[in-house]
């Protein structure tokens, strides 16, 4: 039995502590916004926040998240969309959309840490998130927009 705090709600869960957080979120808690892409921490589709920092939930044992604050895409904003989500809509980033939860979580973590990131900081923070549809140009613009910078490429 472990206790997970996800999006502000405490869940006592009868799961093996070694089970990756990703699968606890998706299959036990029904929070399917966090995606499975590779299972080895290479694609970033499963990115969530652990105490505000971006982590690959496919690589994190659920037991290691116990007692810490887990935030998923569903909990990123309480009511109104998060500025990053607004920027994603304004720049019409998603195509298939599958990777975008992870992209948004990485971007939100970056902007929480650095309010006006440089291009190099954006590149570094977002390099772990793959997008097969090729939305990277719009992701760059959206991150800049969310940071209040001109969104030009």
């Amino acid at each position: 039995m472990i206790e997970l705090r996800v999006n502000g709600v405490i869940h006592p869960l009868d799961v093996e502590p070694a089970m990756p957080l990703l699968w606890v979120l998706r299959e036990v808690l029904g929070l399917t916004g966090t995606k499975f892409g590779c299972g080895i921490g290479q694609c970033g589709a499963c990115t969530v926040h652990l105490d505000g920092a971006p982590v690959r939930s496919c690589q994190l044992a659920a037991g290691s998240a116990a007692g810490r604050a887990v935030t998923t895409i569903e909990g990123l904003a309480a009511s109104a969309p998060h500025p990053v989500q607004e920027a994603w809509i304004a720049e019409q980033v998603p195509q298939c959309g599958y990777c975008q939860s992870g992209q948004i979580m990485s971007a939100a973590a970056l902007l929480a840490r650095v309010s006006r990131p440089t291009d190099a900081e954006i590149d570094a923070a977002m390099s772990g998130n793959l997008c097969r549809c090729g939305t990277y140009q719009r992701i760059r613009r959206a991150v800049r927009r969310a940071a209040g910078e001109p969104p030009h490429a």
Partner: protein
Amino acid sequence: MPDPVVSRRDLLKAGLIGGAGLVLAVHLDGCARLDADPPPTSAPFAPDAWIRIGTDGIVTVVVDRSEMGQGVTTALPMLVAEELDADWAMVRFEQAPVNPAYVNPLAGSQRTGGSTSVRAAWLPMRRAAAKARAMLVLAAARAWGVPARTCTTERGVVRHPATGRSASYGELAAMAGRLPVPADAPLKQPGDFRIIGRPLARLDVPSKVNGSAVYGIDVQVPGLLVATVARCPVFGGRLRRFDPARALAVPGVRHVVPIETGVAVVADGYWHALRGRQALTVEWDDGPLAGLDSAGVQRRLEDLASEAGVRVKSRGSDSPLHTSDARVVSARYDLPYLAHATMEPTNATAHVAGHRCTVWVPTQYQSGTLVGDGAREVAAHAAGLPPSAVTVHTTLLGGAFGRRVEHECLSEAVQLSKAVGAPVKVIYSREDDIRHDHYRPVSHHRLEARLDPSGRPVAWRHKLVAPSIMSRFVSPYLPGWLAHRFGPVKHGIDNAAVEGAASPPYRIPAFRLDYVMANIGVPLGFWRSVGHSHNIFVVESFIDELAAAAGADPYRFRRELLVDHPRLLAVLDLAADKALWGSPAPEGLGRGIAIAELYGGYVGLVAEAGVESGAVVVRRVVCAVDVGTVVNPDIAAAQVEGGIVFGLTAALKGEISFKGGAVRQGNFDDYQLLRLPEMPAIEVFFVPSAEPPAGLGEVATPVIAPAVANALARATGRRVRRLPIRPESLTA
């Protein structure tokens, strides 16, 4: 993407397939029918298969193509909203069930592919909406006792200007629903469009930024079990024996089930299933491909290049090109197998209960007609039920690119649900997805050309050696001579292998393309832009080599040979113009240009690329596109951006190779995709046009690789003739 169903229809109607993509609408005139699901969401006003208007005024457009990122759930509703004069804020979409009304007229089956969605819907959906509008107008006119022609429509409201009366579509829906559907209704003139041509926000985006969008892998059904399947790592291998004991000992594992493709571990969740599979004892008979390796494939292709092959096309003089002739240019090109690597791994969910089978599947191909490889037919076969007993729910697709017309995974899910008596979701691990794909075929090319004294090419010969995607659709029940004349590989020519190479647009008097089919045994499939993905690289690289041999500017060289192709010439000029072709390239970089025509669309692209710190860098891409009328310029630009990234990823990184019969790559560490820091700045320009829409989703994919190779030739003086590009080959 060529459609096997269409090809089979050659038996009925000869001469279907044109040089690039599909060109003929196939009507289901009773010769083959789909079993129909009832229409979705009943509404008071449902004049046809696509449009539902409720008393609340909500216009629901039933979208009969799969949403795989291309924006079809916005573009098709825009077509309806335009002719309906709907209020865009009131428009919603819904995914279509399986029904003959939803057959793609450009494919002959209910499928999404071949860049057909908008061009296939362009007239039928607009006509349907125009008729619906006419019915709403008539309902209002009758209620008001005025002539229908004196009424107008605007943003979901019918008005009678003379009396100032008005009624919303919601108010009129019930009345309109009782009227007969008119035989015809006039369409708007392009100058009157107020929705088509506008960069409206996508209807699916809000759900894709908050985690609520439901992909196949997200489907939740009460009592759902999750399975992973251990498959033989060698294609065509078989299960020799297995022992379920250790897998069954893993907590959460419920069943171990041998199925057609391997041994499935069915568990409470994916992690448990995967752990069970890792514990499984299984032994394979690798079969005849046990020795497959990439060097052997290459040798085989080169051996086959000495065979005559099949003459695909020839014109002009057939006299030999003497290699001793100083004006003869020759080159060989090689392109590898490629995986699709959609971000959402392959998956499917099925529930077989009694005499019903329900499936939830991210599919591009809901139902076929004759071949039986659509989702509904595959599920029916696996369940042992008639197709009419199967309900197909199409979820969102986390990428597709041609991967999701294949349905082994769906078959596995159905077999397992039937076997264990519960709903089952099969999820491919990323390694499963990379190692059990249907790959873009490998290809080997030999080209020769002769230039006249002025440097103009007068002869072009191309021998193309490649496996055939379409061969697997040749019916084993057809007599050989009949298949040879009418089958999907007519006269030994696979159109999916030769498209893009058979008709280079350049005016060259003597031309010859020969195709040698190479049967390797690796499963093949349709990969964004299909044959163009390799052939355009070859044609556009070689024409650049000819320009270099002639001492000509590659842009002007192409220009002079494009006299018969004004639309291609226009995109070539536009790309060159926007890229400031004549100006010096940025320090250390070269500029390269390439063009193509595919699926009715035209593309010209300029790339700026070079080698920095031992890596190929692409800084800027300028792309000019003519796809006729652009329904939504922002979505269209996104498709071009994405198509370029897809092609660039292949050019710089993509390669599936084999060792000991198995695919060597398995995940994104060794089958790498382009990452954000490597992303060039992409500028997209559309040629203004009132022509009907052409194919868009694949048009940009094949031109980026040759443009980059051509840019690198200028930057480094070295010619790339093998993909993916190895930077060390440019600096050694």
